[in-house]
């Protein structure tokens, strides 16, 4: 039984069964409804990401403390055993690491990764780590404080335009430096077969 402590189930129910990966990556509002979303409730930006995802009818899952155990046990592991559903997220690094590792055995890979860091002056800097569209950085910068909503739009409704063909492990287990500042990580994890449709 999922606990309140680690699980905020704010899902919007989706109708019908998941589409094939290629269809998901056709890109549309319909695509958003076929992607799961994970956000970290501790961060305002992640909550804004979640709000936009819910408006797009994406099934949304939250974690209160960064621990994905209950979500993994009761949702993702079950879903991924059948027809794996792509998942997009705005979280801290450990959640990406855990889901990427757990996803390997279900044929899931990380197709998109970006890092978002407070600039100390109320704004954010964005680093596009893995994407076929580095120009997304400019879009996020132009969006100012609305960047989480813009990010959700891009990841959920047009995933095929941001996904990369590079699907090697991200190395998200470790930070780049031990004194790395706090960051948020955005990502898409999807079935490896998606690569065939890019």
């Amino acid at each position: 039984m999922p606990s309140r402590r680690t699980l905020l189930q704010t899902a919007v129910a989706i109708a019908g069964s998941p589409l094939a990966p290629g269809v998901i990556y056709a890109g549309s509002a319909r695509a958003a409804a076929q992607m799961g979303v994970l956000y970290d409730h501790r961060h305002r930006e992640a909550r804004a990401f979640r709000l936009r995802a819910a408006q797009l009818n994406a099934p949304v899952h939250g974690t209160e403390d960064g621990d994905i155990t209950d979500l993994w046990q009761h949702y993702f592991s079950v879903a991924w055993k059948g027809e794996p559903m792509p998942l997009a997220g705005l979280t801290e690094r450990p959640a990406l690491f855990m889901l990427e590792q757990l996803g390997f055995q279900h044929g899931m890979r990380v197709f998109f990764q970006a890092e978002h860091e407070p600039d100390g002056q109320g704004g954010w800097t964005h680093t596009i780590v893995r994407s076929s569209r580095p120009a997304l950085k400019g879009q996020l910068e132009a969006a100012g404080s609305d960047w989480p909503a813009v990010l959700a739009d891009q990841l959920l409704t047009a995933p095929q335009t941001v996904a990369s063909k590079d699907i090697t492990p991200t190395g998200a287990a470790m930070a780049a430096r031990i004194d790395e500042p706090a960051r948020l990580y955005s990502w898409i994890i999807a079935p490896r077969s998606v690569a065939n449709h890019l």
Partner: protein
Amino acid sequence: MALPPNVSERDFNRALEQFSNIVGSEWVFSSDEDVALYRDAYSIYWGEPEERVASGAVAPDTVEQVQAVVRAANEFRIPLYPISTGRNLAYGGSAPAYSGSVVLDLKRMNRVLEVNERNAYALVEPGVSYFDLYNHIEERNLNVWIDPPDPGWGSVIGNALDGGGGWTAYPYRDHFGAHCGMEVVLGDGDIVRTGMGALPNGSTWQENKWGYGPWVDGLFRQGNMGVVTKMGFWLMPKPEAYISGTATVPDDEGAVGLMDTLNLLENTGIVNGSTQLGGGGAGGAGFGGGGWSLQVPIYGPANVIRAQLDYCRQKFEAIEGCTFTEEPLVRIPLSPEDRARVRLVNFGIPNLSTFSMLGRSPFQPNPAGGHIGFSPIVPRRGEDLVRFRNWYQANAAEVSGGENLGIIGPVFMTNWERSLVGLIMFPISKDPEHNSKIRDAFVRWVELAAAEGWAEYRAPTVYQDLIASTYDYNDNALTRMREKIKDAVDPNGIISAGRYGVWPRHLRDA
């Protein structure tokens, strides 16, 4: 495509072809993209030439396939590195000890073969994770607990074979100690069952550890004599309740009585839970405190453990200056309120929370994630506790070259019975310069500890030779004996070359 050492591309391709014939081509991996999945996520050599990497991977589904793969590997002299789920992060993960080995990935062998509630044991395959076994038991509402480590996504067999431990009652939290019987494919493809498992048609394989004659199971703990394909474990019947108390002494003098009393209470079976030691100015509890505190948990029937805790109070309060506080009794199964506040692994519930919490503090809100540990075994006496702490504090600045490398120590672990572990934690990241300094510090701590008679019980693959070299009584007699056995049961040195410092003949001489 990387090649195993001393193997031609032609032979490697022929071996891969044979592996494909045995397990199916979809379960043989040699592309860079696939092989990268087997990198050690916490490698202290991340991205550097010395990083231990695989040349390929093969994932059998049955013990017969394991035998066939081992025989094919013998034919082409392909080094194999078996992993269960490959999640022993900080100890090498799924990357081989000998670079260029082919990972023998046993994840597909993930069947829970039996959980016997009546006699409280389980028989599992290597790919069964703690989550898998927990789910199997809970779905059937069986009256037994597992003992998960932190985190619980790893293999039950893999953790036991690596020397891992958990957080419930003794002896169950000593994972190798709680095993009973195993099935092993040796380096030449032969298959053995240990203990009572060698008795055809016997039914006590998981009920008697020793069987008849010399006991060989220990050869496979941190070993490379074969591939363990089944293993039995004793399980704890679900206890009725849990209670704990905390004894606190004001100074180092009190630590002597604290440890002596703990030893008495554990050695007489009064305290059976995983105790937790803090304070004393040790790194695990912050450098400020002068006193020591010890939490003693007990599992059992409610009225019995209340009496046991009363006895603990009586014994601890006999120490001068010691205070003893009790925490509320927790009924099992856990109420939702208790479940939300307790540490789940103490109640046999696997989870991954450690990844979102480990190393996080007000001083380090964004820990680097990667880490390795040096965990020397220390006598469980108050005098030695204080001596180890003083030794650490006296050497810390010099070992770190006057820099703050983020090393934390010592964290004293009392979860193994009879001895202490003085854990020193080393943060690692993807920064080669910092990792290089951490490597220097690690080696220095190993040398300093060995000079004091303290040595590690478990090590990352890259330091297994170093640690083995500290166990050098009588000109490394123990290592030499292991090498003789290795040469006999794995004559071509196929299985896990170099694991825990045991190398096959052709690589010892190289």
